[in-house]
């Protein structure tokens, strides 16, 4: 038999690419159910206070309206409880907003009513007719005020070992007495995920105790758990379908009020209810990267060794839910400083709850740390790459453990060569092309190589196709494609013979897609399930054929219609015969992380980003002319989709660096940047041809595939690389993102 080309490491096209580009992929809002009705949310127009009355009479009388639901008439939801202890869910104190549960307004544009009608247009028209009267209270949305009342997160108070608790290595604040000293504050504004696909849900009560939802979510299991709990139902009575997700970047990692509202509405009108948020509601109702203030204190010896780093961060959260993230983590482990301390605080404001946004806190933190590294290199008159090399660490300084693998030096070298780092001048403002100044900058990113537990189902069909099923979602990185490749290689089958099915809570349990952990986690489950299938089939074939009975599972070969053996292709067991011996059902395998390795090694993915920028000194316009992203992410399962993911992260980083920001009018506690005309994300013209390089060295400890994860490191470190390049071009240091023209003229 012709040997199959290896799929892992190939550039296999997306298995769902054709469906997506032809419009045949069905997203949550696109399902049609008989008797469908349409819901539109009405948001509050104050940021804090009490709803005195709601006049819904005109809306109720409007044509086609089935119901107007408010806290006055909402069916009671049995269990509005906080999210549980799932590690893939944010560690929050307090709880999710209990929509239509009381008369309190906690943020501006909080859903206060939902209008359900027989068409979307009628629902939208009637929603305009709903009038509310409020008893307004004084709100606080100004971060400056929040900072004055910043507090230690409850999670850190409960657990001093928590990642958000204060950390000290050596002496705290030792930078203050250092030889060369830097102290600088960095600010990230509130950024909004704004994936192309709007948040959407169809809620359908199939029976009084059976709920099916077609939902935009990153985790079908987590969503199932949340809404089963909300309605006091056994989890198996709730079915969540999310086959295609049109980008999410983190905003579908939490269950949100609009989802609860749609389920309540479907309960009330006894029909399926479709609810799609407006672009404006994407700003106010489904999370955002929190406005974060940071301060870095750093000291170094004159020969360029860091002696101390202090990293303080305060992130914005809501008044009803504490959202925390790992903003200060990179500072603890990236460089060999003997004295490091971090402090993480929260500022609670009258806004909705933030949520992880790609890279999440680590990307926010890296802007401060990697900008400070550049500032310190400048103070020391050192090349910033050389400065990082002088402080490179071969073991984890946070806990003294060895790295499971680390090829960051290799990344530095490859990336520096591709960007042409040797052209960079130490003195800012030295390079010019006509009216434009040119500068070079770099930024480093790292993210934990997380692996959780996952199951996978596998079965063989009579035609020799192998079907795998997992509840995991694919929010765009190409999860389905990667799993197909892993299964193909494990079984020795061409990818066309593999059918990987995902995005349904009734498939084998898998974690929420987030934290760069899916290939690390679901990949081994797919691999182990395929091996178990092989072994099962070999044993079954062995019952009637001695050659199979004595063979090793590695030698089992899947031919067109039969099973055979490597080196003995006269041994044959037809699939049809084998399947007669089974019930045709799935083999289910659970894959768990290796606890011992986790204890012995520190596991991280790494990236370094090099940017070349052009700045017009007259107008403050910045263009990224070249971007090289280099990653140490272990084994690269698919060069094409992984490259695509890195490029997407890099473009997200350009947005973070140069344009993304919401602006809040604190007098009203209301955003003024609610649509894509006011909230700028990069367009094609903003993105240069991003060059992606992979070290592609397997990690020996995370899992048998050698993967470490890509999603977050693709963006972590991009914004500081661009900010540092702008400094190199102009001599102007911008410490508050984004770097818009007004900050440079």
């Amino acid at each position, binding site marked *: 038999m012709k040997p199959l080309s290896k799929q892992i490491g190939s550039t296999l096209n997306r298995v769902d690419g054709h469906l997506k580009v032809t419009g045949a992929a069905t997203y949550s809002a696109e399902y049609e159910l008989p008797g469908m009705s349409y819901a539109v949310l009405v948001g509050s127009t104050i940021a804090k206070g009490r709803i005195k009355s709601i006049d819904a009479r005109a809306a109720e009388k409007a044509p086609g309206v089935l119901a107007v639901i408010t806290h006055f008439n909402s069916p009671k939801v049995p269990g509005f409880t906080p999210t549980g202890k799932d590690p893939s869910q944010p560690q929050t104190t307090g709880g999710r907003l209990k929509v239509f549960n009381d008369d309190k307004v906690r943020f501006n544009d909080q859903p206060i009513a939902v209008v359900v009608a027989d068409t979307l247009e009628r629902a939208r028209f009637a929603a305009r007719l709903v009038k509310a009267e409020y008893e307004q209270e004084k709100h606080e949305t100004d971060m400056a005020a929040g900072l004055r009342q910043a507090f230690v997160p409850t999670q850190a108070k409960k657990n001093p070992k928590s990642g958000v608790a204060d950390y000290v290595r050596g002496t705290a604040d030792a930078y203050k007495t250092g030889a060369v000293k830097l102290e600088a504050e960095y600010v990230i504004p509130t950024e909004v995920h704004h994936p192309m696909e709007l948040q959407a849900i169809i809620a359908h009560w199939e029976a009084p105790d059976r709920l099916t939802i077609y939902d935009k979510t990153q985790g079908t299991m987590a969503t199932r758990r949340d809404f089963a709990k909300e309605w006091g139902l056994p989890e198996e009575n709730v079915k969540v379908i999310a086959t295609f997700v049109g980008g999410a970047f983190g905003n579908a990692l939490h269950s949100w009020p609009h989802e609860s509202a749609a389920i309540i509405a479907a309960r009330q009108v006894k029909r399926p209810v479709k609810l799609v948020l407006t672009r404006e509601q994407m700003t106010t109702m489904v999370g955002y990267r929190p406005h974060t203030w940071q301060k870095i204190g750093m000291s170094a010896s004159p020969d360029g060794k860091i002696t101390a780093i202090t990293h303080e961060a305060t992130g914005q959260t809501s008044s009803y839910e504490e959202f925390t993230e790992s903003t200060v983590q990179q500072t603890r482990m990236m460089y060999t400083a003997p004295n490091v301390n971090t402090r993480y605080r929260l500022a609670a404001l009258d806004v909705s709850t933030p949520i992880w946004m790609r890279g999440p806190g680590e990307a926010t933190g890296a802007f401060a740390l990697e900008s400070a590294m550049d500032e310190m290199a400048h103070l020391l008159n050192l090349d910033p790459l050389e400065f990082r090399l002088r402080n490179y660490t071969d073991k984890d300084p946070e806990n003294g453990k060895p790295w499971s693998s680390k090829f960051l030096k290799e990344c530095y070298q490859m990336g520096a060569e591709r960007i042409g780092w040797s052209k960079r001048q130490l003195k800012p403002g030295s390079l010019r092309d006509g009216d434009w100044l040119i500068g070079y900058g770099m930024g480093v990113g790292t993210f934990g190589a997380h692996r959780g537990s996952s199951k996978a189902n596998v079965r063989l069909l009579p035609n020799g196709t192998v079907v795998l099923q997992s509840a995991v979602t694919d929010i765009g990185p190409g999860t389905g494609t990667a799993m197909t490749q892993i299964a193909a290689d494990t079984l020795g089958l061409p990818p066309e013979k593999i059918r990987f099915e995902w995005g349904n809570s009734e498939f084998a349990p898998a974690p929420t897609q987030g934290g760069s952990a899916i290939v690390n986690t679901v990949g081994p489950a797919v691999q182990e399930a395929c091996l178990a299938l092989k072994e099962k089939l070999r044993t079954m074939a062995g019952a009637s054929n001695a050659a199979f009975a004595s063979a090793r599972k590695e030698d089992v070969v899947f031919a067109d219609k039969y099973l055979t053996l490597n080196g003995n292709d006269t041994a044959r067991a037809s699939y049809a015969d084998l399947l007669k011996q089974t019930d045709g059902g799935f083999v289910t395998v659970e894959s768990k992380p290796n606890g011992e390795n986790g204890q012995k090694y520190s596991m991280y993915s790494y990236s370094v980003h090099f940017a070349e920028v052009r700045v017009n000194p007259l107008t403050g316009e910045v263009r990224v002319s070249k971007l090289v992203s280099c990653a140490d992410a272990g084994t690269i399962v698919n060069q094409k989709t992984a490259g695509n993911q890195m490029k997407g992260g890099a473009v997200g980083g350009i947005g973070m660096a140069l344009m993304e920001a919401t602006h809040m*009018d604190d007098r009203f506690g*209301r955003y003024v940047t*609610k649509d894509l005309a006011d909230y*700028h994300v990069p367009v094609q013209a903003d993105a240069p041809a991003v060059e992606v390089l992979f070290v592609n060295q397997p990690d020996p400890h995370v899992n048998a595939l050698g993967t470490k994860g890509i999603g977050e490191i693709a963006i972590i470190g991009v914004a500081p690389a661009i900010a540092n390049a702008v400094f190199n071009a102009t001599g102007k240091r911008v410490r508050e993102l984004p770097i*818009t023209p*007004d900050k440079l003229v």
Partner: protein
Amino acid sequence: MNQFQYVRPSKQQAAIEAVAKDANATFIAGGTNLVDLMKRGVMAPQKLVDINRLPLTRIDHDPGKLRIGALALNSAVADDKQVREHQPLLVQAINAGASAQLRNMATTGGNMLQRTRCPYFYDTAMPCNKREPGTGCGALEGINRMHAIFGFSDKCIAVHPSDMSVALVALDATVLVSGPRGDRRIAFADLHRLPGDTPEKDTTLEPGELITAVEVPDNPFTKHVSYHKVRERASYAFALVSAAAALDLDGSTIKAARLAFGGVAHKPWRLTAAEQFLVGKPATEETFKQAATVAMQGAKAFKHNEYKLRLAPNTLVQALKNATAA
């Protein structure tokens, strides 16, 4: 969106009458702005009079002037050989606006009449004198980083968003209008008005008046022109500030100049004093900086748009440099 009536007359006079007779009727052409405003509840006309069947799409170059029909699409104008030959500044300005998809829908008349993108105007939960007279100007003490530095009033500090109009005001265009009381011609500089006490009125058009065409006289500005638009991304964003510059050079001496700003006022902002300053002077950066200082006379900033006092003159200098080098 409110329910509304929709009519599509094929005769110009019928269209004009339909709007003139009904205070709640409005024309619709490309709809790229009006439909958005209707969806957001900012505008709620009870009758839409679709003028797309009217024969107003022609672009003609007659001796001495270019005549562009009001329904000529932005993309068609920017791509027209006669326009490219005679009015390259206009081509640059049109192509700096919106996106290719929008330019394929938006019309010449509609582009001029697009409404401000002030976020307070767009959010019906916020005060705005332009949307709802008497509620106050939300931007005056609010987030006013995008707002006016010239010609504003305490009732409104919004800016006009059109790029095309900045070129048209610089090029001494004339707007041709047909209304219930007959035809008239409006100098482009007089089409848009300053907010004063009635910011709800964007233009000097009377109810039922329909723009049928715009004329641009031939001029010597066919080579040294530049429309430089500074925005927060490389494309598809409204201007923080834009500058139109057209020069007639004799060697390195400026014989004549046409200049205008966008993104600084309630109307496209012609810079006649700076134009006069440039005449007879050498086309150098030093001269341009002096002209920019003249251009900025009378500018005044608010809390968040103080940067425009630096960005606007610099953008003008950049546009003049580009024009000289062209």
